[in-house]
């Protein structure tokens, strides 16, 4: 017991080696459980709690999770906004990614992605290169989808090639190339 306490005090030093090295047979002193990285990230998300009501302008440089009510505008161009099931947002939103499990009324500019999950409800307009609706999601409004940005630049620009119309029969690629059917018929 005493030893243990001593050991603990010693342990405040950066190195953990002494205890294990000194008495390897002793059962290890319980240490705080390691939190997986993802979970840690989730717990460090700034959260508007379920009983919180905010009106105003929200901007920041970290991910935000809304479980309460928010009215105004949200600007998180480099980060994610998650509106959980209990969350209600009446705002125009700009964020890198937006995940809607609760409710949003307003226009969303999703720089990377907007996803409405099966419990999500959204009324307004979405502008984003990637919009995902899960089955059961309720959406009313307009979606503007720009194609995903072109793949990473080719290292050495080769001489001009004919646009590869990788033949998907009826669906155009999102980039400049045209589908076989279209190019054939237009």
């Amino acid at each position, binding site marked *: 017991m005493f030893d243990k306490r001593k050991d603990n005090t010693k342990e405040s030093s950066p190195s953990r080696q002494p205890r294990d090295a000194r008495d390897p047979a002793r059962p290890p002193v319980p240490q705080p459980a390691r939190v997986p990285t993802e979970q840690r990230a989730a717990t460090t998300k700034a959260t508007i709690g379920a009983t919180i009501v905010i009106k105003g302008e929200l901007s920041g440089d970290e991910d935000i999770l809304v479980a309460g009510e928010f009215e105004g505008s949200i600007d998180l161009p480099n980060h994610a906004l998650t509106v959980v099931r209990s969350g209600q947002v009446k705002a125009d939103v700009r964020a890198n990614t937006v995940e809607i499990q609760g409710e949003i009324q307003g226009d969303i500019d999703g720089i990377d992605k907007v996803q409405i999950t099966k419990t999500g409800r959204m009324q307004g307009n979405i502008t984003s290169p990637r919009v995902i*609706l899960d089955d059961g999601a309720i959406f*009313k409004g*307009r979606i503007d*989808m720009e194609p995903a940005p072109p793949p990473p630049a080719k290292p050495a620009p080769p001489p001009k090639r004919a646009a590869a119309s990788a033949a998907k029969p*009826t*669906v*155009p690629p999102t980039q400049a190339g045209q589908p076989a059917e279209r190019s054939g018929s237009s």
Partner: protein
Amino acid sequence: MPQLLHLAFEGIDASRSLTVLDIGAGMPESVRFFSRYRCRLYFVDLFGETGFASDRRGRRRPRETLFGRFLDFPRDTSFDICLFWDFLNYLTNPLLRDFAQTLRHYVHDDTRAHAFAAFSNALPFVGLRFGLEDTDRLTTRPLAVEVPHPHTRKHIADSLWPFSVARAALLEQNRQELLLEVRRI
């Protein structure tokens, strides 16, 4: 299932953004499908507006303003593709005309529309919700109710000016698939 839907997408200029009207709820597969395009996608779920012809107190909305309320798009909106699905079969004759009249402000000479009609309005026609998986593949979710005003191809052709029926295909379960084009004047 669809035989004509792919024609609605034929000849579309992929270099410019596509503007699409989907008269229905936003379906996951439709959004996924259109994410392959540069596009502006309008979902107007008139099916979901329960008794959309009446206001909240149950009073009938005046016919002339009915669609103006729900189909009130920005002035410069011009649809390349309209997906009506079963919706036309929920409309009475006068409303069918009003619907087309309202939309005429938002179509151009090359607009194409896709719709379902009844082969016979004497036979049952059960409503479905559709999701667009691909131009030759739709997903369906049953509504389990018969549509109130099944229209035949001829009836739609007569009532839906400025749209005209360019092609029709007979499907199972009393359905006809229609490819509609805008009549050039």
